[in-house]
């Protein structure tokens, strides 16, 4: 491995800007760090260069631990967004700077300089001053300068940021060619996904300081694991679907859409499917859909001609069995986006107001277990109050998903009726009260798998405590926790509680459980969690820890609804913190596995 980063964390004034990033970059690889501004990607790059210290973690370059090595001894070349050329030196002096520092003889310096100038196509510019060059030329000089001392790693910090589109194109090509010719491991930081696709062997997507996913551009585009990557890399429609035995079902009528990764499972559960706009087909009627599965009907809202492609936005019909978009677009309208190539436009021209049938050529189901929220309450005002809960609004907007409302009169009573309710999709949200355990129990018995219990005042959590009642709930609980933690800036702590008088051998089992939890979180979800072992009675030990400071959230994995009234009873009487219950029977386990 050329670059290997191990759990890098960097905080500014207590806020992590780089949050537990681990990453391996292979020899000769062109790696692109992609993320919005403020995602911590530049800070990460500067840490690799040695220009920014770390609070935690290790950096190795070609097997050499350089965590505490000064920038000048790391053997990296760094290219800055604003070139950072030495203005008082000529092009030649700039390029030879690193060689002069190393006391290389003049003849050798000249030879190397000419080689580099040829490489970046600036031959004969030796004696110019940077001020006499265009922006693109200056950046070429900067690239040559960064390569002069034959660094093992080339780092580029938004190198095209200050250039206009035409020059950008040419410089991109040059950098890619130089990189191939020298075979140098390269890391480029950018916020431009098109640039990332054009240059990368591999892309790492960062958001809020976390490295969310890494992979080949193609894989990340077609099979993202997170909502953020799905929507940040190109446009995406997030559609709520039901995952059954035969893959996702959009409406009630269309079974059997082919979808990779969907295999057997006992019951239907709600999932989030990514449908790229170019995978949407539009036809006059259901029968005329050519190569795709039927999604539903809709009305064309607007059509935008953009040259090669046409962009259309379609308002889906609101039939009871119609598919549902998970999130609103930028302007608040819930519209399906489609792009069509010229030949499609010729085959079937559309105009605003037209009624069309919509099909999906290809869909990808996200492995996240938290698909949407359904707010449940016994009367309309309670439902509305809960649907407007700040924490819930925050979560749903960050998760780009919707909040549905559902009225269930039997909730909140001391003994809810045993009549079966309609299947509640997604994560069910209920308000905390004294007897919330019986509500939760009833919901779980109806087949709900995640219940979020919200007290009236709950700030955005800073620490998330995780616990599962049984090892068989571990996988599902971790998956749900990962989903939550990607959308809140919080530390994750797994807590295991052993009885007060535990034998030494059993204690070692407890510690092994902790290690297992950590490694699974890291391997399966790229999530770093801390672990703590406590002794005592479960509910009491957890309550103590929750009360240590405000801003906690609790996630508990259970295997049977009866645990709510037994071991967890004390926790569930009027809880003061948001509490997410993840319920998985043994049979549901295989299913959630298959979605990942």
């Amino acid at each position, binding site marked *: 491995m050329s670059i290997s980063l191990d759990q890098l964390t960097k905080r500014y004034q207590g806020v992590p800007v780089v949050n537990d990033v681990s990453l391996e970059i292979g020899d000769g690889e062109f790696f692109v760090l992609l993320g919005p501004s403020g995602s911590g990607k530049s800070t990460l790059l*500067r840490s690799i*260069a*040695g*220009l920014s210290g770390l609070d935690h973690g290790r950096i190795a370059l070609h097997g050499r631990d350089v965590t505490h090595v*000064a*920038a*000048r*001894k*790391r053997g*990296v*070349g*760094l290219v*800055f967004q*604003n070139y*950072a*050329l*030495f*203005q*008082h*030196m000529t092009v030649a002096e700039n390029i030879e*700077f*690193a060689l002069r*520092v*190393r006391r290389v003889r003049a003849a050798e310096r000249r030879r190397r300089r000419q080689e580099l100038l040829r490489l970046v196509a600036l031959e004969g510019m030796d004696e110019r*001053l*940077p*001020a*006499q*060059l*265009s*922006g*693109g*030329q*200056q950046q070429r000089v*900067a690239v040559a*300068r*960064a390569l*002069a*001392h034959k660094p093992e790693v080339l*780092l580029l910090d938004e190198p095209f940021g*200050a250039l206009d589109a035409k020059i950008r194109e040419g410089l991109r090509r040059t950098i890619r060619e130089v990189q191939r010719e020298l075979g140098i491991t390269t890391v480029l930081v950018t916020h431009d996904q098109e640039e990332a696709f054009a240059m990368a062997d591999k892309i790492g997507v960062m958001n809020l300081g976390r490295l969310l996913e890494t992979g080949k551009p193609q894989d990340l585009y077609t099979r993202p694991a997170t909502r953020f990557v799905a929507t940040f890399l190109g446009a995406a429609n997030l559609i709520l679907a039901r995952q059954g035995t035969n893959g996702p079902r959009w409406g009630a009528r269309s079974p059997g859409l082919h979808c990779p990764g969907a295999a057997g499972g006992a019951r239907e559960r709600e999932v989030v499917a990514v449908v790229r706009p170019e995978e949407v087909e539009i036809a006059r009627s259901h029968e005329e859909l050519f190569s795709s599965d039927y999604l539903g009907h809709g009305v064309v809202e607007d059509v935008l001609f953009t040259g090669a492609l046409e962009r259309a936005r379609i308002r889906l019909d609101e039939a009871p069995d119609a598919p549902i978009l998970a999130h609103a677009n930028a302007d608040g309208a819930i519209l399906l986006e489609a792009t069509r190539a010229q030949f499609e436009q010729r085959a079937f021209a559309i105009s605003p107001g037209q009624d069309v049938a919509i099909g999906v050529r290809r869909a990808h189901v996200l492995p996240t277990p938290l698909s949407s929220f359904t707010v449940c309450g016994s009367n309309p005002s309670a439902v509305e109050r809960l649907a407007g809960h700040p924490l819930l609004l925050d979560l749903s907007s960050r998760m780009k998903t919707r909040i549905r409302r559902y009225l269930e009169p039997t909730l909140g009573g001391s003994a809810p009726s045993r009549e079966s309710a309609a299947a509640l999709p997604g994560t069910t949200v209920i308000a905390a009260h004294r007897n919330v355990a019986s509500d939760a129990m009833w919901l779980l018995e109806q087949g709900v798998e995640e219940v979020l219990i919200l007290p009236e005042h709950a700030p955005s959590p800073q620490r998330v405590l995780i616990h599962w009642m049984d090892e068989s709930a571990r996988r599902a609980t971790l998956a749900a926790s990962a989903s939550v933690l990607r959308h809140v800036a919080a530390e994750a702590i797994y807590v295991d509680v052993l009885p007060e008088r535990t034998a030494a051998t059993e204690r070692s089992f407890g510690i092994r459980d902790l290690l297992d939890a950590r490694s699974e979180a890291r391997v399966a979800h790229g999530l770093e969690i801390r672990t703590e072992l406590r002794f005592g009675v479960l509910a009491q030990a957890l309550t103590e820890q929750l009360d240590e400071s405000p801003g906690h959230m609790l996630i508990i994995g259970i295997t049977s609804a009866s645990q709510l009234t037994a071991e967890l009873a004390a926790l569930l009487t009027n809880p003061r913190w948001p509490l997410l219950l993840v319920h998985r029977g043994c049979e549901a386990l295989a299913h959630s596995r298959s979605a990942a």
Partner: protein
Amino acid sequence: MREGQPTVLPGFGLTLGFTTFFLSAVVLLPLAALALLAASTPLHQLLDAVASPRALASYQLSFGGALLAACINLVFGFIIAWTLARYEFPGRKLMDAMIDLPFALPTAVSGIALTAVFANNGWLGRYLDMVGIHVAYTRLGVILAMTLIGMPFAVRTVQPALLEVQRDLEDAAETLGAGRWYVFRRVIVPAVLPAMLTGFTLAFARALGEYGSIIFISGNLPMKTEITPLLIVIHLEEFDYRGAAALGFVMLAASFVILLTINLLQAWGRDRMVRRGQ
């Protein structure tokens, strides 16, 4: 806005007219008076005033002292600017605000205060006296006052240059393998050189023309600790207008040369920073 581009904004004639009129009345007319008086003075009389031994001695002190003071400020001004720009320490903000004190403090006040501090029985003069250094009423005192008066200029020109331009360049040099001393010599100093020279020149100009703070600490001994501005005042007090005007003319010429130097230095600094294609 480019030359010849029309603008809809009003008030050009009014403001420019007022500016030119006021400038002429307050600045240009008096200057013309001085120039004309100096020009109309017979040459031998002019030479008598300008090249008298007493005048020559005063030039030596004024120009030499100002040069020395500017050199001291070049070094210490850079150190202070560096400290303020690069280090975080308790009292940094206070120190930053204090730099402008010589500028805000009336020169008469700094004159008597410096004299009090550095007199042979003063707070610091007492200890300097023990090692045989006399500051008050000597040429050293003149240089000290000149240093004080020029200090803000030296610091305030270098400080922003150190703050703004250099961080990226230093980072670049560091990743290219340069040590800190090498970065300092080859990257930082060349880049802030125009600012340093501008600061030097400003400090020199200020020290050269300074009057108030010096006359208290210098003792004003003819031929020894008498600065040129004081000599002008003495001529005036003797109603020797022509002598005063002649000396004034010499000082004024020096000021023009300095002003020109500053403008050239700033143009040089700008040229080096110009980036085409942006």
